[in-house]
């Protein structure tokens, strides 16, 4: 573990007094390796460790008894702060509220749509699941099956997504749906999403635009976040955290793009959605 590695780096110095500059650098190098191996973006790693280095000197870490633990605590604190912020919630503004899921191919948008629907029902809402993915084979069937499983309404918006959503927003009033959860097509890595998406988000005045990313995504995560800039993303959902991917993207995007992580996907079933825990995520990334 990183704690052990750092412990070894500093072990030789126990009782020796102050740490040398070279030793601080050695400690930071170990942490850098760990963060890069955890898929944190290399620029984020560089900026974060520069800040930690400053703090380490200011805090006179060299005089502490457990420099490894102190250094790690500084890093963990920086990370938790970047990922934490105020507990960000869904806005769910509008009548009906419109929540749109966007993201690269295969990240888990459709599955997450079902999870969010179940979550919102438990919060007393009346969501409807809307398929606005005209491209993927059997996309409608996939979401319709999830809706059926949850006993929730489903509607397609695939012939002309922008116009279909306008019609559905009016239908929502009659049907007493108070949230439309909109599933959209996956995009190639780093590329802008389907042409109709920014217009759909604008026309429906979607208050929540959630970027769904796979926890195993590597250095592409930042580029993916930037590719959706034209969609006005309001938050992030990180999926497949039930595996052993360290999930460095959870640090890169909040820190660089100011995007909060709202939920964690932890399995394939509708109940496998959890609130995001910054502290736990920091520990997971640090390994």
């Amino acid at each position, binding site marked *: 573990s990183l704690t052990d590695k750092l412990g070894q780096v500093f072990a030789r110095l126990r009782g020796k007094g102050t740490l040398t500059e070279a030793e601080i650098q050695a400690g930071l190098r170990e942490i*850098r*390796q760990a963060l*890069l*191996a*955890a*898929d944190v973006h*290399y620029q984020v790693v560089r900026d974060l460790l520069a800040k930690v280095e400053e703090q380490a000197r200011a805090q006179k870490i060299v005089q502490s008894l457990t420099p490894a633990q102190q250094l790690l605590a500084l890093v963990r604190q920086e990370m938790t702060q970047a990922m934490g912020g105020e507990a960000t919630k869904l806005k769910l503004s509008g009548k009906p509220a419109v929540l749109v899921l966007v993201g*690269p*191919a*295969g*990240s*888990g948008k459709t599955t997450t749509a079902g999870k969010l629907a179940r979550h919102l029902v438990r919060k007393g809402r009346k969501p409807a699941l809307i398929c606005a993915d005209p*491209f*993927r*084979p*059997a996309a409608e*069937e*996939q979401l319709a*099956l*999830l809706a059926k*499983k949850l006993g929730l309404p489903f509607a397609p918006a695939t012939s002309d997504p922008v116009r279909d959503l306008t019609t559905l927003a009016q239908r929502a009033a009659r049907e007493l749906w108070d949230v439309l959860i909109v599933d959209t097509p996956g*995009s*190639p*890595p*780093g*590329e802008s999403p389907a042409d109709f998406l920014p217009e759909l988000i604008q026309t429906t005045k979607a208050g929540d635009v959630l970027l769904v990313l*796979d926890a*195993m*995504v*590597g*250095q*592409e995560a930042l*580029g*993916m976040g930037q590719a959706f800039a034209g969609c006005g993303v309001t938050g992030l959902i990180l999926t*497949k955290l*039930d*595996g*052993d*991917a*360290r999930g*460095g993207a959870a640090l890169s995007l909040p820190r660089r793009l100011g995007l909060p992580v709202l939920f964690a996907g932890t399995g*394939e079933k509708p109940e496998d959605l959890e609130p995001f825990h910054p502290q736990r995520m920091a520990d997971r990334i640090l390994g």
Partner: protein
Amino acid sequence: FKGKARLDQDALLRLEEVLLAADVGPEATAFIVRSVEEKLAGQAVDWNAIQAALEETLVQALNGVERPFVLPREKPAVLMFVGVNGSGKTTTVAKVARLLREEGHNPLLVAADTFRAAAIDQLEVLGQELGLKVMAHQPGADPGAVVHDGLAHARSAGYDVVLVDTAGRLQTKRPLMEELGKVRRVVEKVQGRPPDERILVIDATVGQNALSQAQLFHEAVGLTSLAVTKLDGTARGGAVIPIARHLNLPILWVGVGEGLEDLEPFRTQEFVRALTR
């Protein structure tokens, strides 16, 4: 002690960043940088020289990874596709089937993902698009049973290649990995040999988790090869370098788009050039 060139700080940083940005990872990056320094010993070091040494190092690291796909002689051949959730297995199965049909073969698709919502529907739509038959049971059926029936049908009806699409699963889920081993044994029982190719489908956007995927799927079914998807867009797929260093598995194909024609054979030179640009 092999001599090595001293790269200045800027060149070193730039070299590291090219590799890290491509998901090569910190360990393999350190190894590649050392190798570049050794190659440049006693030479004038400008960025062109570094680039050339870098490409050479990467080509060497990927030695043995380029292997053109040849359909085995014994009919039917069986190609089994495995991988984590969302990696692009179903789409790749359809792309490879199309390629084989173009080459005059007669492929049968087997929908052995009986778990995920509309997984069978998805493969059936693709099969229809290609005019190819899909063997399927109902959702929730035992994947081994679907594969067994698919093979029995292929052998009696004279198909020359069977492509098996399996459900996505995270490599750390032991019962799901054991299920894959069971599917392999079903094929062994019917064919008298394991699937001719056991292909791990890896998403090019995956970071350092790719090695864990390769190692654990290899333990579960004995992989013979890889397919790397989503190499269109900005992803460079550098995570295959650690896999090559540890397992040296060939990469048969790369996926370069969502269309059924968007499949190319893996070419080391092209891959390396795209990675280092």
